[in-house]
């Protein structure tokens, strides 16, 4: 079970916020980029044959002698795409369990709100599409939870490909990316994710990555690429590394804001869910 019942009850009172107009396939609760059948007045236009005569504004016709029909806002669903990074770099400390829980938290909130969501993992290099289930109702939560629980951190590593696929999706909605961003080209991936209609990047890092507890002469091996770096782990070296980590997180945050995405740095510890949820509420991503 990825989410405790108490947390689910709390999430049922929250919903993902949307700051832009959407273009969904199905009707929903969010303002659409097209006109439609809602009660919110949008505009007038001249009557054309075939228009619904129930929309003719007779008062204006009598007063101005022009036949105009009333146009109304449309309300669409929010097609939400959630991409979880299950590359090997996430298999460090509690990073991947934290990413699973964060993904489950966003998924459950969206399902409760009646959004149409899609869960997907980062594809392998050369893939042409994202792999993952769709769902539109909370009744699909067990299926989504099982899918998340069955994920292993041995998946693809092409974050840029994932972003391109998301950017090319016809039904554009917000994007939620749960990743450590520890892949070359992460900057380009964020720029492409920014072509979606808003969203949030949950940047998951382990406490041991933020403040490594290493000493002595070591050879560091990359879990994903198996490349190695010989390092003499002195106090100064650790301090320089910590400065680079802070710079990395700061650059990711700035780049996300520039392309219209929210950014939350999620430290993978026991408090990650509660702390991240509070940061999302404080940032207006969730209300």
């Amino acid at each position, binding site marked *: 079970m990825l989410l405790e019942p108490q947390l689910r009850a709390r999430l049922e009172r929250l919903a993902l916020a949307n700051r832009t107009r959407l273009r969904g396939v199905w009707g929903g609760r969010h303002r659409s980029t097209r006109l439609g059948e809602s009660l919110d007045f949008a505009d007038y236009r001249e009557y054309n044959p075939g228009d619904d005569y129930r929309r003719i504004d007779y008062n204006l016709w009598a007063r101005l002698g022009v036949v105009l029909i009333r146009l109304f806002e449309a309300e669409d669903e929010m097609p939400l795409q959630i991409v979880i990074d299950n590359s090997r*770099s*996430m298999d*460090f*400390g*509690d*990073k991947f369990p934290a990413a699973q829980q964060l993904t489950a938290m966003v998924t459950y909130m969206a399902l409760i709100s009646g959004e149409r969501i899609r869960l997907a993992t980062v594809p392998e290099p050369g893939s042409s599409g994202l792999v993952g289930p769709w769902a539109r109702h909370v009744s699909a939560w067990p299926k989504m939870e099982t899918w998340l629980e069955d994920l292993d951190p041995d998946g693809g590593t092409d974050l840029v490909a994932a972003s391109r696929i998301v950017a090319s999706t016809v039904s554009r909605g917000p994007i939620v990316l749960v990743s*450590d961003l*520890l*892949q*070359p080209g992460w900057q380009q991936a964020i720029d492409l994710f920014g072509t979606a209609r808003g969203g949030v990047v949950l940047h998951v890092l*382990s406490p*041991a*990555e933020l403040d*490594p*507890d*290493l*000493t*002595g*002469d*070591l*050879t*560091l*091996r*990359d*879990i*994903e*690429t198996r*490349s*190695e*770096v*010989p*390092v*003499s782990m*002195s*106090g*100064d*070296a650790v301090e*320089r*590394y910590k400065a*680079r*980590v802070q710079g*990395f997180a700061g650059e990711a945050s700035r780049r996300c804001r520039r392309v219209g995405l929210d950014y939350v740095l999620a430290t993978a510890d026991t408090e990650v869910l509660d702390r991240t949820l509070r940061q999302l509420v404080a940032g207006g991503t969730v209300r």
Partner: protein
Amino acid sequence: MSFLAPGALGLMALSIPLIVLYMLRSRRQRFEVPSVLLWSGEEQFVSAALPWQRLKITGVLLLQLLTLIGFAVLLGRPFFREQTLLGPHTVLIVDSSGSMATAGRLDDALGQARSLASDASEAQLISVVEAGAQSRVLVAFSREPDDVLAAIDSIAPGGTTEDLAGALRLARGLATPDRPTTLLILSDGGIAGAIEEPVANAQHVLFDSRGDNLAITGFGTGVPGEGATRLFLEVTNFSVGPESVTARLLVDGLEVGSEAFDLDAGERSQRIVAVDAGAGQAVSAVLGGQNDANPLDDSASLVLSAGTDLTVTITGDGSPFLGALVESVPGLRPAAGAPPDVLIVDGGDAGIVDRPAWIIAPETPPPGITVVGRLESPIVSYQRPGEPILDGLDLSELAIAEADIVDALGWLPIVRAGEIPLVLMGEVAGHRALYFTFDIVRSNLPVQVTFPILGARILDWLGGNRVAATSTAPAGTAIGLTPPAGGTSLVTVPSGQQMTLSAEATTFTGTASPGVYRVDYLDQDGAAAGSAVAARQFVATESTGDARQISTTLDDTATEAEGTLLREWAPLILAILLGVVLIEWWVAFGRPLPRGRRRAEVAS
């Protein structure tokens, strides 16, 4: 610097493998991290082809070399030679006389004794002898520093004159035949007049610190006068400048009056003071309002006793001063034709003395004394220290027209002009006798303030100490005890401490401290069976603070080797090593330990 184990220095050769270890390519431990992206820039690549690398002289290497050398030197046990006063067997003679209380002399002496005791090796024996009123051996032939230190700590300053001659006799009695014995005299030299010859195989460590000192140098009764008891009080300023002081007078601890003194440097002032005190009461004088070098001589006490009337007859010329003396001293009265208790022979025939007598320049000297000449204008140069008759009296201003030169074998001179006796104590026909070699009317003695006191004390002594109105003696004088059969004596010393003595104890000798001693007698059932009070006074001659070097000699057995101490550098080197290790740790890790870094634990 020399080494006790120089072979250990060979451990310095370990520095070679240490340097070799630094030249070997290190085998790094491998750890997995999520990504090496963020570690770019920290790479320190080494050649994998060669097992060796170029030696880099780092701070850690230098500190490790320094630590290694330090340990090698430490194991080599470096030492230096230090001169010491200790020999194979050293007898420490510690002077605890009243003068050693001046300006912390005794504290310094005890400190040096403790230092020597701590420095002694297991092969060195130490004995400790206290030179006080009664010299005594505190510890003998000890190899245990704790025992020696305990003996040293038991020494406290007294108000007495040191018995240095007796202490030297005791110390020589401790000489060991199998090893040279060195006497180490820790003393100010004081008034050790009995030590005329150089002390053989001894060294004298002189303690001569000085300070401003005001002292009560005379305190007694027996002075004629009207009304209550008349006290004689003399205060002397031994400071280098003028001093003012107030002497408080106390009767049984209650203040009954005071006397103010303004004294120039070296000045002595004498007062006659009347106080309302009677028999059995303790009278004290205490100097206050000043903080001088010797606190022991700032107070004096005496106990008034009832006394018994003595009859006195004056024969010979019969100086009017003597008649006035007899009539004015309480407890004395003329014999009026009856056989007297005490006889004063003033210039007459002393050959037929048949009772205690004060013989003053007689025409015919008593048996045992022969007049061999005359000396004009003798000057008093010696008063016997600790003599109760002279206690607190200064006869240095005594002017005498002429005195007989006598040959008095068996008589004890108590006042001398050079080697010529002026006043002698002895016996005539089994009776006490005091002999003046000069006529008092041809001297200024009768007009001296001290004359009534001196006369009263002489007659008191001749009368068997029955007349005197006071019960006092120099510190160190034993107190006679008369406990009831099977009972005990409870002695309360001036400090308030109480000691219980068994019925067999007939004297109490722990009277080195000046002050009032109270003795309570208890019978077999513990019930009170009488009491007595006695006073012991600071010996005034100890107040001068004079110090002098005692002449000593060392024989050939005291070689230079026996006078040196091997002191190791180990504590200093250990401290340096600890500091080096801490610096090395700091240099290696750059920050303190508290975070408790674990080595090589990256991911759970």
